[in-house]
């Protein structure tokens, strides 16, 4: 078994009102960043996982996302990186 650092991005699903994201987008517009079309604010989770290889680490983390880390009703997740330690 090797150890991997797996990063996960979880964001509110498109179409679901994200009041934090909307407020931040409005603030950016006020500052003159008018090119910002949308902002969504979610969470970033970093796990230190033991697995046979990177693919196995990714598969295990996907199951963790499906069962606990993300809410399938309201959130989308993506595995942003799997890095050997």
């Amino acid at each position, binding site marked *: 078994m090797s150890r991997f650092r797996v990063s996960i991005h979880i964001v509110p699903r498109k179409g*679901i*009102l994200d*009041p934090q994201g909307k407020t931040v987008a409005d603030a950016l517009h006020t500052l003159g960043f008018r090119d910002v079309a949308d902002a969504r604010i979610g969470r970033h989770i970093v796990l230190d996982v033991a697995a046979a290889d990177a693919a196995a680490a990714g598969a295990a983390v996907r199951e963790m996302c499906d069962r*606990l*880390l993300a*809410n399938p*009703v*309201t959130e989308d997740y993506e595995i942003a990186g799997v890095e050997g330690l």
Partner: protein
Amino acid sequence: MKFGIVTFPGSNCDYDAYHAVTDVLGADAVYLWHKAHDLEGADVVVLPGGFSYGDYLRAGAIARFSPIMREVAAHARRGGPVIGICNGFQILCEAGLLPGALLRNANLQFVSEPVRLRVENAETMFTHQYRAGQLLRLPVAHGEGRFTGDAETLDRLEGDGRVVFRYVDAAGEPTADASPNGSARNIAGIVSAEGNVLGMMPHPERAVEAVLGSTDGLGLFQSMLARVSA
């Protein structure tokens, strides 16, 4: 008739629920620690309000994996009544015992205030002591009460009469301003398809005596008592 009131680490309305069903309603009740594997003969399970596991990750997301939840789900599958109030509603959604999810209030504020509700379905085992369309005044106290679901889920809930309570204004209309949290279609409470699992954000257990400012929550407990004792 015995209520089982689950205490998770971070529950804070378990005493209120206990007081409501014992001292006011006159029923028996037992506290059920979240690590227990047994409902101790409870006829009705109450998942009370609070901040189980500090609301870490998402409200209710971790509590749903507490050992007692296995027994609660089995009880629900057998048709046993389960009521989740506030954090209890969040836990029921996370556990998949009710559809949808509860998100951060649209105004990003924690709201603690009395709200007006309209009884949308007075046929359920939880609400048959009310009249359809009856207006209630109950307190809410939550930061994540914005009920949401996809359009298909919401349509199904509406079509099947599973929307039990809706936030309304003084005229009894579900206007956008009447909702304390921006919930979809002003939904404040829903039941499962089989009708034996209820989730609601407002706190009926805090409105059971005149000294608390409202007795409008009592009908909910009387409804369960009448139905389960019958």
